[in-house]
């Protein structure tokens, strides 16, 4: 049974329709053969054939609580039932609660928060904030590290030092970014390659 009532989504169909109609990120599209995943629990995720995989990297280093944490899921469910969306110029309990929780764990000098929906958006906001803050000083230059990754959008990919930046240059990106060698250049065991 698929997620949509009355339809059947077997592994073959999910894979074929996904490849025909959706982009696979950071790759040539032709050879892409996505694993079809069904569910996850604890430190495992399961494909559509029921095979279990130990998640040794928390997916993209993001599933830190493991999968299926019921307290987080229930909190999302309760919020969605009460108020699934409201514009950001209004506020809600959860926004204040989060602000207080963040204040309790972040370095103490950081006192104001902007919320995006992905890491790249967080870095884009940082760049805009910096450029606004510095607007009267004339400071434009931003220094980032080679072999870094800061995200895929225009400012973030300009900041990114690793090879994913090359495809984006010079056609889209931002001005004023220079890169510096990362501190461990001489200590890494593999001969470093600056993209």
């Amino acid at each position: 049974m698929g997620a949509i009532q009355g339809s059947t989504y077997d592994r073959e169909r999910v894979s074929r329709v996904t490849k025909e109609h959706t982009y696979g990120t950071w790759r040539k599209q032709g050879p892409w053969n996505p694993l079809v995943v069904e569910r996850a629990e604890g430190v495992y995720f399961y494909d559509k054939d029921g095979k279990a995989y130990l998640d040794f990297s928390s997916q993209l280093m993001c599933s830190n609580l493991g999968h299926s944490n019921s307290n987080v899921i229930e909190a999302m469910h309760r919020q969605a039932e009460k108020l699934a969306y409201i514009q950001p110029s209004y506020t809600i309990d959860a926004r204040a609660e989060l602000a207080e929780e963040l204040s309790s764990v972040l370095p103490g000098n950081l006192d104001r928060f902007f919320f995006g929906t992905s890491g790249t958006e967080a870095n884009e906001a940082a760049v805009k904030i910096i450029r606004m803050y510095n607007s009267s000083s004339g400071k434009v230059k931003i220094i980032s590290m080679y072999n870094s990754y800061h995200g895929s959008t225009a400012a973030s990919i300009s900041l990114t030092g690793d090879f994913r930046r090359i495809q984006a240059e010079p056609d889209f990106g931002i001005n004023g970014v220079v890169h510096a060698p990362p501190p461990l250049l001489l200590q890494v065991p593999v001969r470093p390659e600056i993209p």
Partner: protein
Amino acid sequence: MERVREITEENDVIMVTDEVMSGGWGGRTGEWFAVDHWNIKPDILTTAKGITSAYFPLSLTATDRRISEYFEDHYFAHGHTYEAHPVGMAAATAAIREYKRLNLIERAREMGKYLSGRLEELRERHPSVGDVRSIGLFAAVEIVRNRETREPFNTYRDKVEGRPLMTDRIASEMMKKGVYVNTWVSHFVIAPPLIITKEEIDAGVSAMDDALRLADSEVK
């Protein structure tokens, strides 16, 4: 990093720390944030990923009070329709409370030591393992074709062109054995959920131990 903070302060330059991945969120590196290891106060900190354990897309840009104050009477020219999305707010609040409730910082430090020990064994056993490094439950295993010359198996051009990487071949073997690990051009990122047990760490390391023989066989 302390030196960078000193230099940026001396020159009145804003320092931004991107903790999208390293944001400890209960201990990935053994502290809430990587900067805490060196007691650094960045001017701006960005994070995402584990802030909701990825159950909902959310990111954070946090600013130092000097910057926050500037916008009291200067126009903040930024925003998104999904900014401060209610479900994201709820997910992150619940996630932070879970990280605290489950005491994952302590746990990650302990488990991190265990993981580090097990990965060092891989370095000893496999000529293709050039480096093993970690902080908390956040480790890298880097493979080399030759430990002396530091010649890699692959370059980033191989990756962009879609040529099979040694790391991908090893990860593929591990997938057959039911273990997923994130791969890059020359290294693996081992960063299991902070709730992982020693037995589960052992299972992951065992699969990697077997699969690394592929790389060993092509060492010069």
